[in-house]
């Protein structure tokens, strides 16, 4: 049964942040305000990570998404002028997108949420595991040869390639 404790209050607050921020992103007419609503929504996601006992991911979410990606989005928005007063809130395809959104929601509910957490779901009745993985476990899993070391190394190669590519594109053609 739904118990009302501090965890529930925190969940409601973070849900309000995420959903309210997302709603603000799509309904506001000012692009800068939309970026700030996005930052609020990402903050809500970081809160969910904390509630799921993943504080490392919460801090990294704030650091990477809000501290870098949102700043990048703000830069991009600021350098495109005359985007702060949008005239139309909807374009002519809103019926089709509404249908797709509702279909996606129904698909998620029927295909993912109800089979797992519904009445006859596979996770109902199981106790929450009492070995909650800590940051140390995450760190070990990323370099353990039986676990995730290969994706880790491939991801760092990808980041290096992206960085070199960005430098090559952004540099002056002096010589």
């Amino acid at each position, binding site marked *: 049964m739904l118990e009302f404790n501090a965890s529930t209050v925190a969940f409601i607050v973070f849900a309000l942040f995420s959903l309210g921020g997302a709603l603000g992103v799509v309904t506001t007419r000012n692009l800068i*305000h939309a970026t*700030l609503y996005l930052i609020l929504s990402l903050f809500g996601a970081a809160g969910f990570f904390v509630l799921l006992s993943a504080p*490392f991911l919460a801090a990294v979410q704030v650091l990477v998404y*809000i501290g870098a990606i949102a700043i990048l989005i*703000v830069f991009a928005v600021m350098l495109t002028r005359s985007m702060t007063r949008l005239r139309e809130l909807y374009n002519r395809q809103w019926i089709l997108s509404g249908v797709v959104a509702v279909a996606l929601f129904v698909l998620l509910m029927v295909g993912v949420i109800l089979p797992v957490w519904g009445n006859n779901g596979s996770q109902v009745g199981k106790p929450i595991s009492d070995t909650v993985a800590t940051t140390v476990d995450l760190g070990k899993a990323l370099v353990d040869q039986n676990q995730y070391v290969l994706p880790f190394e491939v991801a760092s190669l990808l980041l290096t390639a992206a960085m070199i590519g960005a430098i090559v594109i952004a540099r002056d053609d002096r010589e």
Partner: protein
Amino acid sequence: MENLCSINNLAACLVQGGMNPDLANLLTTLGGVVLVATVPLVTVIFLIWVERKVAARVQDRIGPNRVGPFGLLQSVADAVKMITKEDITPQGADKFIYNLAPIIAFASVVLIWAVVPFTPLHIGADLSIGILYFVAVASIGTVKIMIAGWSSNNKYALLGAFRTIAQLLSYEVPLVLSLLIPVMISGTMSMQEITRQQGGMWFFFMAPVAAIMFFIANLAETGRAPFDLLEAESEIIAGYNIEYSGFKWGMFMAGEFMHAFTACLLTAVVFLGGWWGPGVEQIPVLGFIYLGLKTGVVYLFALILRSTVPRVRIDQLMTLNWKWLVPISVANVIMTAFLLKLVQWLNLAPQDGTLGAALPQTIILFAGNLVLGLVLFNFIRNMGRSQRLADQAVPVLGEHEESPVHAVGD
């Protein structure tokens, strides 16, 4: 045994006195929150006076001495003046985010104080990711500058904001990389645990290069001289906070002073041993005093540096970061990882928190840092020598020759 009601066990005391345990916990937590949030606000008033006095003495003058004894009430007078100033909002400014920026400026600094361990027993929130929390909160500070610069409806504010963001984002890299060193040495990211493991030897002696790198990156992150391009009064007037007047500007200023003090506080916690000192195990409250003393020393150093060194240009700033600090930090991380594994393999890792047990690891790590420092020093010396010879060998400027003024690292 009669339990003395002291500040250490206030919650237990209240429960003994008949209060509901949940309510007692809530009250003590609230009291802790109020204390942690109020101490920086009160400290910043004193800090502004210290800054003006030290800057004045370095410049061979006296500083404020009219208002109150030794000018101690000068900050109070300034605060009163700022509060009574007219609150102007520029026309065409985005009101909501214009007013939001000073709030975020202050909040993003006070939030850091939640993870600072003041004594062995008193800490706001002993997060297991304390160091990462500090970096994440410091990166929220870039948001406030962006929205302050944009919402002022002033192109100079916007340009100042762009330059500031470039500086802040660049200097986060050596900040995080140099914070990795104490995390590697102590094996945890919790601030309280890092402080506790410095009982044998301060991390400053195990990793002096990392400590200096952290200090420099913090100076650049908070916008203190010599990196105070952000508010270079003689160049771009005030950068992103041109259009702020009255108490909103006061919030920005107070936030900047507090950020500088918080950066020195964190240097003291992570590298200088935090609350460690003689007798702190028996009387935990002494930890406050030791931490305050260490922070004061670092802050004094930052203040004297501010009054001594000239301001760097934006290209010198970027060169210093990407061509010097980042490679040094990366080399430091690699070297420290290798040396720590070596110490473990030789079974010299400190088993307990005494000086003798920590000494072998200290010596090995210090030797590694010394080698890195000597290599760096040699490199700089050779580069300076070649630049000096090149300057002396060019007596007359031809048409296609560059001028002899070089930035560091060109």
